[in-house]
Every structure is written in structure tokens, then in C-alpha cells.
């Protein structure tokens, strides 16, 4: 059986337990595991969403995930990260992203998990196209810039660091 990698992007459906298993318990040193699942919502900006399509620049997305991993290791030493992002067509209620953080103490695991999803939204080269009743639209969020110190500081702030 192939081990689950900690950082991936691909079309496979996401699940939490394999990620939690992959990140392991650090030989009994972990006291806290926090996970985040982003789900496809049936409404956005007043539109009735029917489904989403996610597209990614895959090799570059993986490097963005590695960058986020390194940012977390620098900010919260000892926290470990697993991050899977799905691409392709996603139905309402399906998970587009799954993030797991593990740590000796819960404050760090919560903060790093929140930080990770904020940074995915800042710097991962991934786009979603929203299909709604009557049309479709590419969603455009943040201009991606890994060196934008303000964006990074904002992610730390909402992570309650």
C-alpha cells in the first residue's frame, strides 16, 4: 500500500482519516490534531450554485504548499501539516480542500490550521469556476504574491497567533 503523501493536489475525493493517519502522532508527543475541510456551498454571492470546477497549475501548487509548510514550521516550530487540494468537477457538499495540523499543544495546532487555509487562498495557483443557474463565472480572489508581507501578517492575525 502506498503511503498517503502529506501535500497533494489532484482529482481524487478527499478524506480526513487517511491524512490524520499520514501525519501520525509523532510517537506519542502530539496532544492535538486540528483539521479543516472546505466544502462546496450551494449558494455564493446570492447565486444558486450547481457545481464547481477547480483548476490548478499542479507542480506550482505543490511548491506553494511546500512554502506554506515552511512558513508554518518557522512560525510554529513542532507543528506538522498535511494539505490536500482537489481539482476537477466538485458537487455541492464535496470537499475541495482538507488540512490537518498536529502539535503537542492545541493552540499551535488551531493557529497553524487556520493559517494554512488563509495562505492557500493567498498563494496557491488554483482557480474555481462557479456554475450557477443561468451561467458560470471564474472566481478571482487575491493577486498571488508569496512575498506580500501584509497578506502574510493578516493570515497570522486571523490565525490568532
Amino acid at each position, binding site marked *: 500500500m502506498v503511503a498517503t503523501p502529506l501535500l497533494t493536489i489532484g482529482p481524487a475525493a478527499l478524506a480526513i482519516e487517511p491524512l490524520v493517519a499520514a501525519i501520525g502522532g509523532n510517537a506519542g508527543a502530539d496532544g492535538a490534531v486540528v483539521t479543516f475541510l472546505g466544502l462546496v456551498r450551494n449558494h455564493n454571492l446570492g447565486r444558486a450554485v450547481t457545481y464547481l470546477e*477547480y483548476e490548478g497549475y499542479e*507542480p*506550482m501548487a505543490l511548491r506553494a504548499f511546500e512554502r506554506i509548510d515552511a512558513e508554518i514550521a518557522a512560525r510554529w516550530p513542532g507543528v506538522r501539516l498535511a494539505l490536500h487540494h482537489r481539482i476537477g468537477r466538485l458537487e455541492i457538499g464535496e470537499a475541495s480542500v482538507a488540512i490537518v495540523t498536529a502539535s503537542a499543544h492545541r493552540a499551535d495546532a488551531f493557529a497553524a490550521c487556520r493559517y494554512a487555509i488563509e495562505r492557500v487562498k493567498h498563494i496557491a*495557483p488554483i*482557480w474555481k469556476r462557479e456554475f450557477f443557474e443561468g451561467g458560470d463565472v*471564474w472566481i478571482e*480572489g487575491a493577486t*498571488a*504574491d*508569496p512575498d506580500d508581507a501584509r497578506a502574510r501578517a493578516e493570515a497570522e492575525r486571523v490565525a490568532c497567533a
Partner: protein
Amino acid sequence: MRVTVRLFARLRDITGAPELVKEAAPGDTIGSIWRQLVTQYPELAGYERSISSAVNADYARMDQQLRDGDEVAFLPPVSGG
């Protein structure tokens, strides 16, 4: 020399192609390639201030000079997560 240009999301819709091969001259930068594309596809001009760029799958500034065989990517504002 030649570079490959990767385009994503709405940029791809505008150009109609996920990937283009471009001739480039020594000294050409990511920015030169972008300006060529805007000339060819004027609708791209609206992204002038919001795109990010990459070379060989790493973020790179618009003034970075290109080498033969580079893969240049233009990224509209991202919306993962």
C-alpha cells in the same frame, strides 16, 4: 529561442489556449512576453495589474529575463481553498 506560455482560468478562456509557444529574443523578460500577448489578445489588458507570473513553476517578477526552454505562466487572481 523559444518559451512555453501557460495560461490559466479566465486568461485561458480569453486566449483560447492553455499553452502557447512563443519566440523570444535574448534579453526578453516575462513582461515582454506579457506585452506581446496583450497586443495579440487585447482583452488581457484588464489583468495588467492583477496577474502574477511564474517561470518553471516558481513565482517570478515581470522583469525576470528568460532562457531558452523556460515555461512562463500567467496567473489571474487565485481562488483556491
